[in-house]
């Protein structure tokens, strides 16, 4: 079927052309991480400087700070989102009033679909010095706190607002996992006189375990993605100490400070580590479960 295969190749062509132009050609541009790139001389004219930018990067105290921030924020989000999503799924499964169940689902999935640009204004409105949260604190006699300008509160704020946005959406797979548990197991547990806690602990949770593990393993591939959109829309120089992450740093160095080569070097470091993690995670989940990412 030669003609069929050439037809297939023809169908692949437009998409592959786009990948060539917008994915593969930029990969060639990565050489600028090993150059002192200047826009005037271009990639072919700029002098090579070897690992200069990488050495410089690891000599900066900043890099360790942003790596630490990235990991703390990303891991915090994953752990708490997973925990909340699992709890939410288990609780929602107990709701017998269909109308309430549908309504709550509709509401908790919604924030996932809203942009951080929108949600950031809402967060700022609530948590700024003159925001509702501080007003409530004031009324209750507590000290007011500039959550968005304070290095101690900024990371928890990032983590909790992201959990708020994502736990509902994350719960979808866990709800699906619960519905696929054999109802016979629950009947057997009830006959044995198991309480709700015991049924949850010994039937529901073990039934969800594979999916929880799978999702957690897949999350590992994302530990360097702490959420550019969220951080960029919420942070300010007062909280760079705890709020600056790799992606925001690359953006500021590259497009605002025009350190093209240095910024590309930091980005390359992140991409390579990210790719290694992704492949490792995929191999691991192929080996230990039936599922894989690609």
């Amino acid at each position, binding site marked *: 079927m030669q003609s069929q295969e050439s037809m*297939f190749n023809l169908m692949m062509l437009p*998409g592959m052309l786009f990948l060539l132009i917008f994915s593969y050609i*930029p990969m060639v541009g990565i050489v*600028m991480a090993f150059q002192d790139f200047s826009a005037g001389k271009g990639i072919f004219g700029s002098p090579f400087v070897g690992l200069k930018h990488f050495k410089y990067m690891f000599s900066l105290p900043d890099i360790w700070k942003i790596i630490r921030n990235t990991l703390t924020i990303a891991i915090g989000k994953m752990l708490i989102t997973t925990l909340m999503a699992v709890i939410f799924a288990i*609780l929602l499964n107990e709701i017998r009033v269909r109308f309430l169940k549908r309504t709550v689902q509709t509401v908790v999935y919604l924030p996932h*679909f809203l942009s951080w640009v929108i949600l950031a204004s809402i967060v700022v409105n609530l948590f700024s010095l003159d925001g509702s949260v501080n007003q409530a604190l004031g009324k209750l006699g507590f000290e007011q706190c500039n959550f968005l300008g304070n290095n101690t509160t900024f990371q928890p704020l990032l983590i909790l607002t992201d959990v708020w946005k994502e736990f509902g959406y994350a719960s979808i797979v866990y709800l699906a996992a619960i519905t696929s548990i054999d109802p016979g197991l629950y009947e057997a547990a009830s006959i044995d006189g198991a309480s709700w806690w015991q049924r949850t602990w010994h039937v529901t949770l073990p039934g969800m375990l594979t999916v929880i593990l799978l999702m957690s393993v897949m999350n590992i591939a994302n530990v360097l993605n702490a959420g550019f959109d969220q951080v960029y829309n919420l942070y300010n120089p007062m909280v760079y100490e705890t709020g600056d992450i790799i992606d925001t740093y690359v953006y500021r160095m590259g497009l605002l400070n025009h350190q093209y080569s240095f*910024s590309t070097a930091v980005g390359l470091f992140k991409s390579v580590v990210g790719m290694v993690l992704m492949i490792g995670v995929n191999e691991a989940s192929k080996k230990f479960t039936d599922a894989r990412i690609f």
Partner: protein
Amino acid sequence: MIQSKSISARVGKVVVYTLIILMGLICLLPLLNILAMSFSGSAAVTANQVGLVPVDFTLAPYQKLLGDEQFWRSFMISVVRVILQLALNMVLIVLMAYPLSKSKREFRARGVYMKLMIFAMLFNGGMIPTYLVVKRLGLLNTVWSLVLPGAVPIFNVILVMNFFAGVPKSLEEAAIIDGANPLQVLMRVYLPCSVPVLATVALFSIVGSWNDFFSGLIYITKVQNLPLMTYIQSLNVNIADLVKGGASADTLASVAAISNKNLNAAKIIVSTIPLLAIYPFLQKYFISGIVVGAVKE
């Protein structure tokens, strides 16, 4: 004994219902608060008196917004980019997913294409090299800079590919016996059976391009060409810049007074309406989409 058990069960039920309603409210109230603010008088909003019900009810913020030319220009740019992105994504997804859903025997080059795509999904040139390509192509400050770099959403291609692979072979064979070529098979056999997954990826595409502000941030420098999210974001930053400049309490108070919080709230509401309009469809399809995507063999 039985009595106490049913009481504890009843208490448990109350606790569960309370927690679930609480979680729902936590997600809903901040959004209702913004809605109420957009219908409230400027003074009440600045003084933070607005909870869930508008104070000094007024349509003034919306009337003012109607006169904001840049807002509507950016709104239209976002509408146009969503349409262009959707059309381009769907055509490319379908065209690529069909051949890739064939076995290696039927399509020998499949393995090479898959490797190229997965590598492009795992690894990228990064912000600056991509920016330079977009710049070199002369796309800066055009709507195409927002659309073309994301032309092939690889993950969605794989999602649709997996779905196509599950379409019964006999349907296709029957069409081929009738003399259909691969493109006709795709159009007449595969597409009609794949409405749910196509709707899922279409909705992902719409939400993604409507919400994206980053492309606008790096590729668009002229205010009049900004897509909506980047435009709103640029307004947020202006106010934040004043605040973070170490401004005194007096300055902060005056900034708050002139910052038109209720107008900003109206902007947020209006820019969310398109998403709310498609949300019922989203909800219908994304659940099946995410479950298929997450747990596939």
